């Protein structure tokens, strides 16, 4: 239904796409950009791009990966263009006493510190649950490159956790 409406360029499809995929697109963009306003722009831009170019889409199954691919590339483009934007989070003024919270902050900070394309690979694989092949296609690279990026990212996460003994214990029980 949505794909047909998209191919027919029926304006009401925008609302439908927004309802179905808007949050997820925003999630992908936000996790890459770490900027809420930027992520919202990416959502709008992605859906308008889909509306413009959806005429060629045939396979309904391809819609979600296609949208998230557009969103990823938009977010990476934004980051490259405006990218050396500094975003800092509000954080507790003293260290948290909640190990889960500490670990969450630690994991997120490591993900944020990853190079942009590696971070995009992590977001697509672990947030959007893309298979490695789809991640590779979305980023215009090879599956081997994506696997290497994911391994490297997990390695960094593991090393960061190893420096925080309580988190490591929580993770490995």
């Amino acid at each position, binding site marked *: 239904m949505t794909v047909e409406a998209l191919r027919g360029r029926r*304006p009401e499809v*925008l*609302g439908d796409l*927004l*309802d179905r995929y*808007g*949050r997820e697109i*925003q*999630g992908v963009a*936000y*996790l890459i950009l770490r900027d*809420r306003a930027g*992520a*919202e722009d990416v*959502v*709008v831009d992605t*859906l*308008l*791009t889909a509306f*413009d170019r959806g005429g060629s889409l045939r396979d309904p199954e391809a819609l979600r990966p296609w949208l998230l691919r557009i969103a990823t590339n938009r977010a*990476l*483009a934004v980051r*490259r*263009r*405006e990218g*050396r*934007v*500094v*975003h*800092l*989070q*509000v*954080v*507790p*003024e003293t*260290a948290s006493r909640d190990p889960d919270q500490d*670990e*969450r*902050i*630690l*994991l*997120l*900070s490591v*993900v*944020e*510190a990853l*190079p942009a*394309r590696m971070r995009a690979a*992590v977001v697509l694989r*672990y*947030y959007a649950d893309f298979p490695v092949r789809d991640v590779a296609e979305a980023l215009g*690279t090879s599956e081997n490159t994506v696997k290497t990026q*994911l*391994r490297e990212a*997990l*390695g960094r*996460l*593991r090393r960061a*956790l190893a420096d925080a003994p309580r988190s490591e214990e929580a*993770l490995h029980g």
Partner: protein
Amino acid sequence: MADELDPRLEARLRTVLRAEADALPFAIRGGELERRAAERLRARSRRRLMLLASAAVVVIAVGGVALLSFMSPRSDVAQPPSPLPDTLPSFERLVDAWGRGSRQVIRAELGASPAGTQTTVGDIRGFPDLAIAFACTGQSIELRVLGDAALDPVTYPCTGGIQLENLSDLRIANAAQAPLQVTAPAGVAWRLVVLADGGVAPSPAPSTSPSPAADCVPVSADGAFPTFGIVDSIELKTFLDAGTVTYRRIGTAKPEGDAGAWYVDPEPWRSVELAGPPLVLDAGTSCVQTWDIRIARSADVEAAIAAGTTPAAEPQVVDAPEIGHNISALSLPTGDLTIRVEVTWWTGGGPAATEVRSFRVFVAAPRPTPPAGADPVNP
């Protein structure tokens, strides 16, 4: 084996990422989306109408010229393109249109020809983010990317002004070849630059060796951009990646779009206390050629922006370019400051690049040093 995939870590990462994204409020409404879609369609219709109108003018003009040439003695000598009109924006202005720090991948121009021209220039493979900035006089030009990269020919009416086309969506990273084709009808003169923004292209780019004074260290994967950071007494947090317990929110700093203007994000700023050696500029791992660091009181910067002038900034003497320049060695007064840093660096295989950033910090007075032997936690 330490970096092999780890199902438990992967599951934890999944949970954390989802929780982080789900915590974000979703504020976009369908009405806003439809309004912007309608705006886009209207802009496109206007462009099409302009094109039709200019095409009609050209048909009449070409008919007239054909009639005149039929009535005049014929010449078999091909007419060379005429010189470019002075009214076309310079290459420098075209580059500036996309933003400072862009690298030129292609730079081309052609004067008007009575017969029209089709020109193929350059190769834009391997660049992650591209834009074409161009200007033309006359009727219109058509741009397309050839090879197995997909860009349908797009016709642009000539306005004489600068036009930008973002090519970021093009899937040309793995294309075998991707030259740019410019088709200009009779009487059209054009000038264009293709610009790559950020990153180091995987394909070979014209290489500029660093100057002998450059301070070089091996280039890492992350070495394309310098990072700017704060050092506290415990560890380095880069500005880009900060966000853990060390800092309170200080807002958003954006790189300057224009080297001549200071930029301060309008978002209200809070303060950050810098302890210990306050600020480190870490150039990553690359060959740094120059640093230019200027510090001004933020109030002066804002006043200068409001007045459209340049604030009086104190240039900081940097003895020699070095990796990880420590601003604490410089004169850093306390208070609400805007720091502008311009660094030019070079990474292997790519030309020199310049990055300009301004950010704002509140530098607190140094904390009193506890007497020797005092317990730092429970003095």
